[in-house]
């Protein structure tokens, strides 16, 4: 495989417009060279932003990097560009399964199976999801254990230990059902620290979740320290301009959308998504997540 990678790298260097970046990125991902794979994928995406397979590649790498929220967004984008892309349905099926949303997992795996009937892995995963569903609906079994599922392998993404958290904002809101969905996904993000949700106290100390920079670096602590000041500034601005209590602060950057939501005792919750995430929806999610986070914190003691 090393020779293949060298050959593909050389091919891409000779012809930067070549679609070989798809194979090269996947090969690097399979070798666990995730940073290199991500660079290849992002470079390819910059050249081919409307190529669904490039978004799918990116999503697989992000999944390996334990960034399920961003993987979710990439797969959703892939399906917006190519609604029949079986690989993206497989990936979303995996993420929904991890989130315990068996109905959505089943729906995406069905679409994946219809898009690629020859994929026996998807069919097997679908059967396993269906076999668990009646028990789950009856409350006889808890949400699926992380790493226990076939859809991960079927999707070509790893069944990660500890399980990547569910895509926090999208799963419950896209479906508009399963009232416990958002609570579970927020708690998973706070406990597992998947890189897109950060809970901070009034002194700038991290209480839960994690934040990662685009290069994968953990930037939780420096951002937490600055967030406390931003939260105080937001409260002061709202108070002095006679606007009452502040509820959220939406920050639109060219490469990210962020929303800060006020929590109890001067704390703040930060939700980060890609620039394609609808800001209004992200704001709603952040406000709801702040309520869930406060409950989680009380329960944690």
């Amino acid at each position: 495989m090393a020779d293949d990678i060298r050959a593909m790298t050389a091919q891409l260097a000779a012809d930067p417009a070549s679609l070989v970046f798809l194979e090269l990125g996947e090969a690097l991902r399979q070798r666990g060279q995730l940073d290199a794979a991500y660079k290849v994928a992002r470079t390819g995406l910059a050249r081919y932003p409307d190529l669904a397979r490039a978004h799918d590649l990116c999503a697989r790498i992000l999944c390996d990097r334990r960034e399920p929220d961003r993987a979710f967004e990439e797969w959703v984008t892939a399906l917006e560009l190519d609604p029949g892309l079986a690989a993206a349905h497989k990936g979303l099926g995996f993420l929904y399964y991890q989130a315990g949303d068996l109905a959505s997992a089943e729906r995406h795996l069905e679409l994946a199976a219809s898009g690629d009937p020859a994929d026996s892995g998807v069919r097997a995963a679908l059967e396993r999801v269906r076999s668990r569903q009646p028990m789950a609906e009856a409350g006889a079994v808890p949400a699926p254990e992380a790493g226990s599922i076939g859809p991960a392998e079927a999707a070509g993404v790893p069944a990660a230990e500890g399980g990547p958290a569910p895509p926090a904002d999208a799963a419950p809101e896209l479906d508009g059902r399963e009232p416990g969905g958002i609570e579970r996904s927020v708690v998973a993000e706070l406990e597992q620290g998947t890189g897109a949700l950060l809970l901070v106290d009034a002194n700038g100390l991290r209480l839960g979740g994690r934040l990662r920079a685009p290069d994968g670096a953990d930037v939780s602590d420096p951002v937490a320290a600055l967030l406390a000041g931003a939260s105080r500034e937001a409260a002061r601005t709202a108070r002095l301009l006679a606007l009452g209590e502040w509820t959220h602060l939406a920050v639109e950057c060219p490469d990210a959308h962020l929303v800060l939501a006020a929590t109890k005792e001067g704390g703040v919750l930060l939700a980060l998504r890609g620039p394609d995430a609808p800001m209004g929806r992200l704001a709603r999610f952040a406000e709801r997540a702040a309520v869930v986070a406060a409950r989680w914190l009380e329960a944690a003691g």
Partner: protein
Amino acid sequence: MSDPREVLDRLSSVRGLRGSALVSAADGLVVADSLMTGVDGRALAALAASLAIRLRRTVEAAGRRPPAFLQLQAAGGAVLAAPCGPDLVLVAIATTEANVGLARLEMLEAARRLG
């Protein structure tokens, strides 16, 4: 660069906006404004500029590019801000009845013209 006064007057005509101001990012002082009676332009300028600077530092610490638009939402209204280049910030104050989506579009266009 367009005439700031003209741009601010147009912006302040958006329904639900109580006024807008062009502010020096470094010191929070008003460069030009178009405000309804009762809006403290100096306070709006100072507070919004300070908030914009803090948020810029925060997103940069997160490895992201500087903000293009900010919305501080509160129970009684909102403060909106759009940096115009490195030195200026366009700010506006809105009631709860404002169409923030429209105000955002107008502010981004105004920031482009003023930057």
